């Protein structure tokens, strides 16, 4: 028996359990969701089956899941950077909007240039737009000690109004401007400016770009000086300052880069999915709340860019599946938003467990070190093997 105990306390297994903790968190949230469904007098099994079918039931369903996962992953990558730098960026929504606006402007303005060039320039414009919208709160935090949570929230509200203003006025579709309906939307992008799709599905090149960028962000964070410094500042700004790192600069960079990825997410939504910008007056009307859900995905992926890929697919699946669930068992898809919230709460709560287990492991290791070296046979005797 002690052998078994030893096995369950072994380092490898303990780490394995740690890495599975987010899965437990999701299962717990789904279980609570089942209780809610039960209270709403809906058969939870039927509802979750519809959700699964909606997300993975067919090639097209899975493609839709990936389409939905793409902005989550891009926003999530930015979140990995900023949260690693201990900067809480809640401005994903606004950064997506500004990125999309700039990209759309490029796409609608330079109609004489070749397609590949305009698409490339538009993606860069989206990246820059998000960088500006993330950089402003970064500067405010670094040099004016304005809390970034607040400034990014304010910047979201400002971005929404800017979008509404532009789509109703300067950027409105010329054909809509003549009509009395005046739907607040831009003109459609030329066909040659659209990101290629994997016909017949809506899966577009943006998904591939996002995955490639995930690898790039991993390299950035763990293989470059820039990434190292961002993480150092995040873990201990005081020590970093003593080590000669210009802390303020890296706070700005963390938010700026984080915003840039959200901006790119906005740009790919326009060039890969909708081919135009349209507003219903709210931010979620354009972003589908990806600016928030991307945070959820990144946290779920434990702020690791590569792990954020499956996490994004999971949450993309939940969002797509929710629509099917709504159709089949008449449960509003809002249930999934509530469940996402629970997943976040559970994941951060479980983080505590993980840290405690880590400390125990460390303590155990220390104890082993301190005990006098004993010959191997004796050790085996102790453990009873």
């Amino acid at each position: 028996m002690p052998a078994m105990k030893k096995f369950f306390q072994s380092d490898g297994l303990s780490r394995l359990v740690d890495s599975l903790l987010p899965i437990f968190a999701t299962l717990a949230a789904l279980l609570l969701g089942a209780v809610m469904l039960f209270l709403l007098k809906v058969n939870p099994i039927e509802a979750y089956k519809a959700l699964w079918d909606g997300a993975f039931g067919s090639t097209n369903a899975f493609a839709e899941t990936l389409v939905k996962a793409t902005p989550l992953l891009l926003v999530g990558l930015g979140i990995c950077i900023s949260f690693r730098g201990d900067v809480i960026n809640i401005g994903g929504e606004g950064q997506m909007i500004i990125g999309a606006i700039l990209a759309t402007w490029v796409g609608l303005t330079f109609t004489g240039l070749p397609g590949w060039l305009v698409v490339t320039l538009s993606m860069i414009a989206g990246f820059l737009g998000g960088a500006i919208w993330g950089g402003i709160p970064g500067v405010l935090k670094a040099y004016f000690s304005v809390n970034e949570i607040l400034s990014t929230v304010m910047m979201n509200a400002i971005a929404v109004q800017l979008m509404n203003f532009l789509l109703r006025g300067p950027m409105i579709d010329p054909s809509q401007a003549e009509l009395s309906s005046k739907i607040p939307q831009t003109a459609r992008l030329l066909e040659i400016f659209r990101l290629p799709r994997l016909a017949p599905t809506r899966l577009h090149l943006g998904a591939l770009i996002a995955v490639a960028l995930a690898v790039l962000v991993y390299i950035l964070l763990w293989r470059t000086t820039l990434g190292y410094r961002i993480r150092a500042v995040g873990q201990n700004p005081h020590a970093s300052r003593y080590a000669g790192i210009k802390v303020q600069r890296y706070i700005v960079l963390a938010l700026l880069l984080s915003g840039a990825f959200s901006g790119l997410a906005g740009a790919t939504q326009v060039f890969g999915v909708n081919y135009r910008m349209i507003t219903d007056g709210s931010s979620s009307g354009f972003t589908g709340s990806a600016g928030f859900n991307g945070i959820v995905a990144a946290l779920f992926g434990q702020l690791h860019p590569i792990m954020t890929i499956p996490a994004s697919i999971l949450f993309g699946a939940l969002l797509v599946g929710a629509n099917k669930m709504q159709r089949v068992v008449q449960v509003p898809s809002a249930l999934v938003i509530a469940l996402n919230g629970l997943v976040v709460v559970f994941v951060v709560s479980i983080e505590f467990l993980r840290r405690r287990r880590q400390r125990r492991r460390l303590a155990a290791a220390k104890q082993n070190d301190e005990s006098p070296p004993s010959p191997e046979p004796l050790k085996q005797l102790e453990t009873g093997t």
Partner: protein
Amino acid sequence: MISELFSVTVLIGILASGIRLATPYLYASIGETFGQRSGVLNLGVEGQMLLGAFAAFFVALTTGNLWFGVLAAMIVGALMGLLMAFVTVNLHAQQGISGIGFYLFGLGMSDLLFQKLMGTVETVKGFPPLKIPFLSNIPGVGEIFFNQNILVYGAYLLVPAAWFVLNKTTLGLKIRSVGENPDAADSLGVSVARVRYFTIILGGVLSGIAGASLSIALLNVFQQNMTSGLGFIAVALVYFGGWRPWGVLGGALLFSMVNSLQLWIQVLGIPIPSDIAVMMPYVLTILVLVATVSRVRAPTALTRPFERED
């Protein structure tokens, strides 16, 4: 048209609606002030407000009693606060992030319940204006301050009450000490956990009332995501007000007066694009944050979970 803005009736209108619009911010921000002074950042205010707004509206609609609605909002807020307290105090969860979780939960849950229990947008007859005898007869001032509904008065009475509790009572001293130096407070026998539970639940209750003030006193409807960022602004106002109730009052008034001005600009048809006008309070808040924040120091233990050294 610009000159209309300066007529006495319009000015009174702007000020009166500014006073009224500050109500939800005051409830939520004062609640958040208590939490932050004890070292806990609650970013879930928006979610608590949405659930409070729905609970108040639904209960008021079905029972016909507005006070039952307020009570329901308080209970829902308290429950959300209790959960938040457990997660942040006992499980040491990262406060900013778990707050976002609670926000998403409230956002989804209030929408879900709305669609399942009501389905369509309905209206309710909210709290009527309550004229204060004599005072409401003072020209101008009476219209601005003393012809509001009862939840508005409550919000303004809350400010001195919060100031008194925080600065003049033992409870307030405990709250502040837990927020500044939890280790010292703990060694003097103050239960950090109990104090934080109290402030987070109080914050939840007040956020619930803030939601109720929207759905059954100011707007008298419930819609999905009707707070649209109001709860986050309320958190910002706490920083803005330097963690002091009177400062919070100043911030809430400034924000809502600018908001009221922008609404009136639209009503009067002054040619400023409405989207740009709506943007103004947010831009202003950022600017004022830049100007003020560096002067006031945040509670030292803000966002830091407390763990006793063994």
